[in-house]
């Protein structure tokens, strides 16, 4: 099995006709993802390499039975597109767009929670979700990953590839790789994704890769202790980041005493999660835990 995306994913891409949107849509399709449609207002009736384009999500869902949306439109339009997808009945929305205003994210998060509680939003500002051998929705370079029993959840894209590569070099494959994104208000948290991995029979080890800023890792640590029976290995980036500076991701900032890497590592280790000090060490621990 896998989580979030898989063989039953029917993908509709918002922003499919933009150059980035087209490029990654076709990559996903070539990987084997069932891309059924796209949405670009004003371009309904056209197609992208045979994928039909609609003016609205409502048309796309009605005509093609899409159940998953990938959002690739620029930041000023992304919140609107997420809300449209949910309104049209899409259950899984994966938002790749980086640079969405934080107040838009706040509005989207709270509205989805109250009006569409069954909709799962992944991202924004994330690399997407890859379930090796089944489906790839987003920009994760699938060639580096194969099927296996390690579930990965991460706030960062390239760091995920780095950790995934370290695991792959030691012979591990992945059930699913989930990027939850580096923004202040991610649609799904570590806890949401870890809960899915806990219930996924294929996943035997969970790797969570966090970074400075916010308190999502601390909350996950408490959750793991109370609810997760599978082994979890952690990594936290930004141990040496100075306070008050945003380290690339809008959400990666140590403000005052909160959000530091040291506090996160302490919270995880205090709740029985082993934390690698480098991406290489994460793979070393994975070998110890799962054997080889």
């Amino acid at each position: 099995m896998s989580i979030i995306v898989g063989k039953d994913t029917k993908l509709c891409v918002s922003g499919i006709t933009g150059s980035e949107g087209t490029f990654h849509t076709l990559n996903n399709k070539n990987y084997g993802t069932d891309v059924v449609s796209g949405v670009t207002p004003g371009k309904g009736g056209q197609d992208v390499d045979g994928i039909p384009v609609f003016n609205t999500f409502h048309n796309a869902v009605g005509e093609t039975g899409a159940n998953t949306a990938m959002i690739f439109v620029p930041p000023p339009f992304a919140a609107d597109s997420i809300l449209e997808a949910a309104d049209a009945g899409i259950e899984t929305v994966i938002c790749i767009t980086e640079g969405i205003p934080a107040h838009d994210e706040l509005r989207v998060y709270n509205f989805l929670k109250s009006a569409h509680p069954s909709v799962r939003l992944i991202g924004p500002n994330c690399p997407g979700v890859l379930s090796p051998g089944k489906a790839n929705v987003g920009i994760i370079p699938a060639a580096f990953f194969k099927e296996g029993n390690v579930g990965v959840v991460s706030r960062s894209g390239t760091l995920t590839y780095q950790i995934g590569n370290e695991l792959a070099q030691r012979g591990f494959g992945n059930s699913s790789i989930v990027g939850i994104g580096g923004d202040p208000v991610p649609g799904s948290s570590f806890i949401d994704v870890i809960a899915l991995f806990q219930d996924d029979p294929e996943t035997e080890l969970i790797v969570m890769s966090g970074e400075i800023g916010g308190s999502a890792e601390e909350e996950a640590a408490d959750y793991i202790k109370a609810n997760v029976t599978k082994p979890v290995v952690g990594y936290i980036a930004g141990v040496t980041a100075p306070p008050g500076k945003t380290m690339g991701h809008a959400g990666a900032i140590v403000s005052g005493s909160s959000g530091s890497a040291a506090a996160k590592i302490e919270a995880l280790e205090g709740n029985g999660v082993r934390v690698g000090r480098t991406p290489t060490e994460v793979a070393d621990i994975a070998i110890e835990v799962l054997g080889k």
Partner: protein
Amino acid sequence: MDLLEYQGKQLFARHGVPVPAGKPATTVDEAVAAAQEIGFPCVVKAQVLIGGRGKAGGIKVAKDADEAREHATAILGMDIKGHTVHEVWIEEASDIAEEYYASIVFDRAAKAPLFMLSTQGGMDIEEVAESDPTAIARLHVDPLLGFQAFHGRRLAYEAGLPADVIRPVGALLAKLYEAFTAEEAMLVEVNPLTVLSDRSVKALDAKVTLDGNSLFRHADNAALRNVGAEDEQEQMAKERGLTYVKLDGDIGILGNGAGLVMSTLDVVSQFGGKPANFLDAGGGSKAEAITSAVEVILSDPKVKAVLFNIFGGITRCDEVANGLVEAFKQLNPQVPFVVRLDGTNDVEGRRIVAEANLPNVQTASTMNEAAEKVVEAAKS
């Protein structure tokens, strides 16, 4: 994006939050003219993005024009904890009866704005929170509902405000919330929020952090600059569309993706090195962007060695390699480089680097090896 006190007060004023009258000045003559316009006594306040201005001598009351000149002369150019004062704010003096604290924080954990109100204003709120947590009234506002009058009353009564200021403080908090949402702030803090001797309330200080991602729809805020706060490399990087943060070490770092770059800084430190910067060249960087990034890194004279740590996803290693080769042609760097290329088109990228036969460039096949080599290179 952090605003200076006076920029924050001007933003407050646009939304009806009462603030004392004032004018900014960048020269002594401007400051004196502003003081004469505002009248005496007035206050000369250093405008820097750091606390403790008063203790450092950056806030002074002037009784007349001579004193205004004297204070402005002393304060302009003053160094406050490493921040040079380039601007002062000349403000009417306030006859303060009471000092409170008010703030709205974008609470990421609760996914809602968090209000805090306390009668213990004028001091460090983190200290108050530690020594007497009950002295701070807290309340989350549902962002879909917005601020209601009862929110203001609850906060004011819970904080223990005197009866005669419950209404005016509640009204000020409503305006503050309007400023927070309309300007898309991550933080607005008023410390002190004052009750004057005539029992009117005013925001005597303003600390505002805006969301950089929202500036595309706030042209006024996007145009605000605080020249003193940006160092040379950070300004240069911003103009080139690169994400760069200056650090205080001597190893220049270039990587792709914020998480990987943060991780690279950590690993370099574990091997005993000190990074000079954080530089995320971004996803899908083309050769020109890489060349341009190398120029920013090398413009910092402290840099003694440079590490490229690339894991290509959207970014192609051959583009990075071409950018590096071009940078060597254009800039002829005098410091050693260590290059680690993995991911999309890595074989081609490594071939380009090898064939260019660049002086003083070593390659590494893992992140740890790269970190170890660059730390060694920076020593020699």
